[in-house]
Each structure stands twice: as C-alpha cells, then as structure tokens.
C-alpha cells in the first residue's frame, strides 16, 4: 500500500515562506498532479517528499511509514527530474540500471529488468549509447525508465515534459499516461501546464503561494473552482469575471443581462467561461473589438471599460469588427464568486 500522507508541511528559505502548513492525502496508485505557477511551492513540496529538502515543520508518511526523517537514499522512491539528470558518463543501460545497482541486485535480475523497462519506453535499440548521443526526448525516456526500473512505491515527477517541444510533449504525455497506468504506481506529478494536469491527473492539487487552494478531480476543478484564482488558472482562455449587482435579492444584473443568483449578496462576481456562451438574441452585451479566428473557434474580445471579456464562439459565426452582439450563457455553467474571490453556491 503506497498511499501518501502529508501533514502540516511548512518550509521557509530565510524570510521567504515557500510552503505553509501543507496537508495532502494521496491514495494508493493515485496519479496526483501538483499544479501551479512558478514560485508556488510545488517543486519544493516534491523535493521534500523525495528527501532533497527537509521541511521545517510537518510529517510525510508513505504506506503508513514515516519517511521525512529518513535520508533520501533510504526512502525507496523514484524521481524524474525536469532536466532528466541522466548520467552523462554512463550508457543508457547503466543509467537505467543505476537504482538496481545501488540495491546491489544480482546481474541477471538487473539485466532482465533493464531490458524489460527499456522495451516499455522503446529504448531497446539505444542501450549502449551515451546521453550525449541522445535527443532530449530519448533522454527523458531514459530518466523515466530509470525510475520505473526500481519499481518504487511512489513515483515523483518534476515537470518532466516542460523541456520538450510542443509536438513531442503531446506524444510523451499520451505515452506517460499509458505506461504509468500499466505500472500501477502512486505518482505525484508537478507541472505548471494545466492541460497536462487535466489530461493526466486523477486529482489535481492547485497550489498558490505555498498553499493548496483546491484539491479535486480535474472535472470538478474545471466545473466548480473554489475561488477566482483556480477558476482563472484552469481553462484557456481564462474564465470571465463579470461584476454583478443585485437588483433584487437573488436577481442580479451583469453586462445587461438579468439572471438568478445566490440569495443574500449585494455585489458578486459572475464567472462564465468563454466557451460556455453563444451568440443569441439576448444575453451579455459584447462589442467585438477583437476577432481572432483560431481555427476550431473564433475568439471575440471586448476591451471596453478596462475589463476584458472574451467569448470563444463557433467558427461559423460571422462577425464584423466593432459589431455589438448578445452572448447567451449556458446557465448551468455560470459560477458565482464574492468580490474577494470566494465561490458562492447558487441555490437555484
């Protein structure tokens, strides 16, 4: 059982608080993604789990065993680094075998395992090459193979795809997903790319300034973000936040549209994603200042009154610049937030 329990992990670098009381539970075989912008603390948290940093306060348990007091080498975890950290002086074979050699496994087992894992990542033909002779993508696979070879209780991945070009990233993402699902290993994956997070994760922990803001399944985070930060972070282009004021208790007006909302609030922010609106006879007012045909859809942007308002419309919509239109929102997708950013349940 390789479930992970992180309790109250706090870490400061001098006067800079990198992590503030992080609590997280990861189930056995779960694929958890730590998502956030740079500086949010996600890599620090991963390194604390790996043992490359020590937390000032807090505990980390894996499979019921407390590991935060162990040295990194004794934790029996595996990690894929952002820059791969494939040893330049060893062949691909020896790189993959490294963890097994540290465990002093006999040669036959090492050989068998390395070959098996190399096949999984399609590196069988490159086993006697050195990393300087490999492409970035191949090196990344060596790093992955090295981690898989030791059959760790937990797999830690620190932005492994961020140094690959876009097309390769897409391919590797799919491969990663299938390989890791097959190996059934508990995984913690760090990234700043929300598409990666949505695609790979069983659950996403969105981090911001050293705190986990929301930890939920991808769809939940997308549909029911807990605050405007999460709402704006997931989804590209980001969610629109329209100031809405109550004309009556429970009835709000926003951008010329009246609709039902939560009771007991005077001012709220209405959240609606660009892709959840359609051109109609009634709805939010919008002036098509900027029209960007992106291929699958058309991005229309209204830049009036210093609040950018975006809609992603079907590419069949024909609009001219400056045209005033009405955008009908999908009422089920409307989200409400306090002016401070907290989500509010709509009792509609």
């Amino acid at each position, binding site marked *: 059982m390789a479930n992970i329990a992180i309790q109250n992990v706090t870490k400061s670098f001098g006067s800079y608080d990198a992590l503030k009381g992080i609590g997280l539970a990861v189930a056995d075989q779960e694929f958890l993604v730590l998502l956030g912008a740079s500086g949010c603390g996600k890599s620090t948290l991963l390194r604390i789990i790996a*043992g490359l940093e*020590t937390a000032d306060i807090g505990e980390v348990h894996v499979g019921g065993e407390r590991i935060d*007091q*162990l*040295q990194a080498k*004794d934790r029996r975890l595996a990690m894929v680094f952002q820059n791969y950290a494939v040893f330049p002086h060893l062949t691909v074979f020896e790189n993959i075998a490294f963890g097994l050699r540290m465990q002093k496994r006999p040669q036959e087992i090492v050989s068998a395992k390395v070959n098996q894992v190399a096949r999984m990542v399609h590196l069988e033909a490159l086993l006697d090459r050195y990393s300087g002779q490999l492409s970035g993508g191949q090196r990344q696979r060596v790093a992955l193979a090295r981690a898989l070879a030791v059959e760790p209780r937990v797999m830690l991945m620190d932005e492994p795809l961020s140094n690959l070009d876009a097309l390769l990233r897409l391919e590797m993402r799919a491969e990663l997903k299938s390989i890791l699902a097959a190996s059934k290993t508990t995984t913690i994956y760090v990234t700043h790319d929300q598409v990666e997070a949505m695609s790979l994760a069983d659950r996403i922990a969105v981090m911001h300034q050293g705190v986990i803001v929301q930890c939920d399944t991808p769809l939940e985070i997308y549909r029911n973000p807990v605050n405007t930060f999460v709402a704006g972070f997931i989804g590209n282009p980001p969610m629109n936040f329209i100031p809405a004021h109550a004309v009556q208790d429970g009835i709000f007006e926003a951008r010329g549209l009246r609709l039902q909302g939560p009771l007991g609030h005077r001012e709220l922010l209405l959240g609606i994603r660009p892709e959840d609106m359609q051109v109609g006879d009634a709805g939010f007012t919008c002036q098509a200042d900027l029209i960007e045909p992106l291929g699958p859809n058309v991005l229309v942007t209204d830049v009036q009154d210093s609040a950018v308002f975006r809609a992603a419309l079907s590419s069949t919509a024909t609009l001219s610049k400056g045209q005033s239109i009405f955008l009908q929102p999908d009422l089920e997708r409307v989200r409400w937030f306090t002016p401070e950013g907290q989500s509010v349940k709509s009792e509609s």
Partner: protein
Amino acid sequence: MSTPLITIDVAQRRLRRLLLVGAAIATVWVLLPIYFLVVNAWSSQEAVNAFPKAFVPEMNHESLSFLLGFDGVLTSLVNSLIVAAITMVFSIGLGAPAGYALARYEFRGKGTFRLLILLTRAFPLPLLALPLTVLYIRLGVDDTLVGLALVHTMLALPFAVLITFSLFSGVPTELEEAAWVFGCTKVQAFRRVVLPIALPGLAASAIFAFVISWNEVFASSVLMIQNRTLTAFLLQNLDVSPMHMKFAGGALLVLPAATFMFLIRKHLFAMWGISNR
C-alpha cells in the same frame, strides 16, 4: 528491516563534525608551517639555533636586517622585482591579445595555436633555460635581467593566454557590437567597453605572472651569475648560509608573493572558474 536506518538529523550531525574536524586540521596544516617561518624569521640568531625552539616569535628584526644588509641580497631583491615586472608586462602584452583572438574569432589555425599552448603544459619548462644559456651568450644577453624575463614570460604565457581567453569570453560580444553600432572603431570599443570590464581580471593575471616569475628558482639559478635574483641567490647560498639567514630569506620570498596572491584571490577564483556556488 535488519539494521536501523540513520535519520537525516544524525547523518547531518556526523557530517558537521567531520567537516569541522577536517577543515580545522587542513587549516592548521596550511597555516602552521608559515607561522613557523615567521617565528624563525623574526627571531635572533641565537633563538633560531636554540633548542628546543620557542613557538613564539621574539619579534626581533636581527635576522632580517642582517639578511638585507648582506652583500648582494638587496641587489638580488631589486633584480627579482625588475625581472618579475618585465615578465608581467610581457606576458600580458603577448597573452592578452591572443586570449582576445581566441575568445572572439574563429580562424584557421585556431586549433593548432590552442594545441601549441596546451603542449607547453606537458613539459617542465624551466629545463628550457639550459639550451638558452649558450644561445644567450651568443646573442650577448646572457646574465641579463631581460634574458631571464623572457624565460619567465614563457612560463607565464600559457596561463596568461588561457586566463585572458576565459576573461574575454565572459564579456558578451553584444556589448562591443553595440559600441560599433554607435560609431566606435574596434579599438575605441575595446578600450571603452571591454577593457573596463576585463581590467580587474587582467590586473589579477598580471600579478599572477609577477608571482610566477618572483618564485621561479631553476631557470634563475641556471641563467644568472652576476645579476642574480633573490631565488637564485638563496639557492646558491643554501650550503653556506646560516640557518637564520635561510629563514629570513624564506620570509622575504614568501611574504610579498603570498600577500599579492591573497589580495587578488577573488579575481583568480573567477578566472579559474570557481564560482560562489
């Protein structure tokens, strides 16, 4: 689990202890012998020959002033200074342009030149003073300070080239190019843009060349008879000079050079690529 695993705290504590002990031993190991030299040099002749030795210097200048007053010492000191100064000028004058060329240009023969410079590292260069004795006599520069300075320059030149190479490599080409765009000639751009940035490093490598020359023993002893440098003087008098003179001489050799090196240490480390982590 068979044997209990060592926790991070325990491991760190052990490491710290090891580091402390190791660093202390190493520091004492480096400094103590120099201290002993200072003790000996700043003691009277009796104290130097006494036994057991006192471990504290008497702060007696007798040995040093005796040495400096000894016939030929002061001249050899001046000779050392002159030779080192000439070496300094020559090695930077020859080495810096070469270092600049290596840093900035690609040209045919670049590899050969680099190989030539590296080749000098495979040989004990001071030995080359031997054939030069005859050659110098024929050219009439035997026993001259300039003649020795040329040999010392050969010793310092590979360092000068390699150090200025890394120095100039560290100055972005864009800065010079910007100067050209704004109307500077190559020379002006070099003087106004590159030189100010490289100057500390150049000064440091000049002083490094100075110290190399100042400390050199073999060639100085082989090539010079009348116009000896301090090192040659001390070496040739080793059998006949009394102890306290030896130590005073040693101190005279050590203190200026060690002080110089210590003063320019930051630049040396930058040049040798030792970053602050």
